[in-house]
């Protein structure tokens, strides 16, 4: 699946940068074009892989390249005003070669949080290709204002995109990480998951071709119903089998049966772990409207039975009959299962986020109301005996 990626804001830009790096490093062929949009010049300068021509600095007249300071309303306003500049960068993307747009943004900040729904709306109006969003939720300890931003942006973003893939920082935070290495690892996780998912159908010359290919249309159809999606993923190291060796000819057929059973069991257990334990947005998978399963690894460690069992298990768990599946043969000593659950509804984390956001909103309103009164009390003397200068 070939994507046109647009990283909006600091987190979005960094993730897109990582996507390009992953794409180059592993030769996946998923990023057809990439652009980064920001109101802060410093953030754009920090990118390494996004082409310089596709780095768009917006809102220079308003914020002079210094960012919007976590004000996502301002971010949305600026994106609206400078949508022409963003379109300028998108014009260079050969849209006929891409299968979909992916707008990547952190939802807790200002620029990406406010601007990405605006961009999504704009792209959907102009292009027929689906526009997906990849939104990163802030950790619950990051503070009320970021939670409020995320809750408001989430609401709008879901409405404007064809599907919103969500990654919750809270679910991936570990204790004792430095800020930089923490985000670095999280970004690596994001990129690996979506890289495997979107890269599954991209077969190069000389690569193994899957028995049942996960083409871009499978991904598009899984995401088609709209709503919110989450991705589960789990991987396990395996030994790359040496098919040669004289002795292997004399081994009995029992070994093959055992190996086949192991492969099947490994795949089903990976699918379970991916769907139950390692979701980008933790949720109850029951009630997910559609699902897609991609099992990847060396072809001798993939088998139809394992994938079928995994798929069937997903059908049972989600209660949905629309579960697609396929394999993605890769010549490396790992086997991985990626599960895309689309149209998830039962997400406690979002409810919690909204609750905190409402509290934050109320708190802010309250403080604003009291603010003037409090200032008056501070500035004026009790008997009002003093006069101002002018």
């Amino acid at each position, binding site marked *: 699946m070939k994507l046109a990626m647009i990283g909006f804001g600091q987190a979005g830009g960094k993730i897109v940068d990582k996507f390009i790096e*992953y794409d180059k*490093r*592993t*030769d*996946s062929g998923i990023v057809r074009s990439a652009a980064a949009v920001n109101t802060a010049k410093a953030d754009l300068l920090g990118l390494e892989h996004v082409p310089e021509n596709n780095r768009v600095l917006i809102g220079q007249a308003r914020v002079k390249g210094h960012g919007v300071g976590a004000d996502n309303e301002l971010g949305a306003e600026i994106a609206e005003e400078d949508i022409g500049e963003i379109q300028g960068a998108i014009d260079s993307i050969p849209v006929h070669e891409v299968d979909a747009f992916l707008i990547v943004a952190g939802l807790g900040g200002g620029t990406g949080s406010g601007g990405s729904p605006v961009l999504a709306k704009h792209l959907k109006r102009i292009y027929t290709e689906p526009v997906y969003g990849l939104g990163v939720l802030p950790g619950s300890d990051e503070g009320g204002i970021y939670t409020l931003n995320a809750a408001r942006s989430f609401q709008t973003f879901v409405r404007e995109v064809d599907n919103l893939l969500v990654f919750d920082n809270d679910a991936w935070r570990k204790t004792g990480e430095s800020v930089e290495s923490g985000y670095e690892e999280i970004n690596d996780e994001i990129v*690996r998951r979506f*890289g*495997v998912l979107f*890269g599954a159908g991209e077969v190069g010359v000389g690569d193994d071709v899957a028995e049942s290919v996960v083409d871009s249309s499978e991904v598009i159809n899984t995401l088609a119903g709209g709503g919110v999606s989450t991705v589960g993923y789990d*991987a396990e*190291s395996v030994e790359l089998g040496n098919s040669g060796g004289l002795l292997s000819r004399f081994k009995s057929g029992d070994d093959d049966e055992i190996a086949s059973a192991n492969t099947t069991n490994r795949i089903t257990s990976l699918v379970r772990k991916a769907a139950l334990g390692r979701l980008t947005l933790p949720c109850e998978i029951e009630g997910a409207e559609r699902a897609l399963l991609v099992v*990847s*690894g060396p072809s001798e460690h993939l088998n139809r039975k394992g994938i079928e069992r995994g798929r069937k298990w997903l059908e049972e768990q989600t209660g949905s009959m629309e579960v697609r599946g396929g394999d993605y043969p*890769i010549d*490396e*000593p*790992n*086997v*991985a299962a990626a599960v895309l659950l689309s149209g998830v509804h039962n997400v406690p984390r979002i409810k919690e986020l909204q609750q905190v956001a409402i509290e934050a909103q109320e708190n802010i309103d309250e403080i604003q109301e009291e603010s003037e009164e409090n200032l008056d009390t501070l500035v004026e003397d009790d008997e009002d005996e003093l006069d101002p200068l002018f």
Partner: protein
Amino acid sequence: MSWIRSSKPLLAGLLIVAALGMAGTVAGLEFADVTADDELEVGSQAEVEVVIEEPFDGEPDEYTIGASTEFVDGSVTITADGPANTDSASGENPELTVTAEDGYDEITITASGEVPQIGEGGPGEFSYEDPENEQFTALSVTQNNGPVDSVAVDRFTTESQTARERIDEAVEAAGEDDDDIRAAIELYDSGSFEQAITQAENVIDDAESSEQRSQLLLIGGGVLIVAALIGGGYYVYSQRQQDTHKLQ
């Protein structure tokens, strides 16, 4: 092809054969021992000596032996020596008649004097390529006025020796076909040694600098190759180190 044209070399060949045959019958004497330096410096005092043993073995019972030299102010001494008798003659061109009855078993001929100039009134001429032309006849011996043999010795002057050495080096460095070397050889042959030395040294310098240049190029090339190998090695290493795994 006419007969007259082709007959000329044939005639010359026949004459040479005849001359050799005559020499063979007339001069049967041979030098059993020659004492002489390989080369002598012009103007120096020197001496050469030859010994003829068994002077009547296969020879007439009586004959006259004569000797001459190209030494400047040279003197030659012929000494016939036997168990019973001794006889000798000396001078610039001495002659000594010996008979078998005297029972001589050895004739010693000695010539000494000052080594003559090359050209300029002396015998021979300077020639780099034909060093024989620079030789002089230190001693020439006759038997009944017919030639027996002679002793020719190479000569040199300090300048000519230096020039020859320099030209040798230049030839080694640049090869004989070099125009500058030909010029140096011509200068040598005409006796202009200082110029010949300068010319030869120029050739040597040029050759050395071009050799240095090519050496530098060689070293530069080597360094480049080593750098490329190291760079390539590092590239391969970093490529190997880089994690290209998609899944984990």
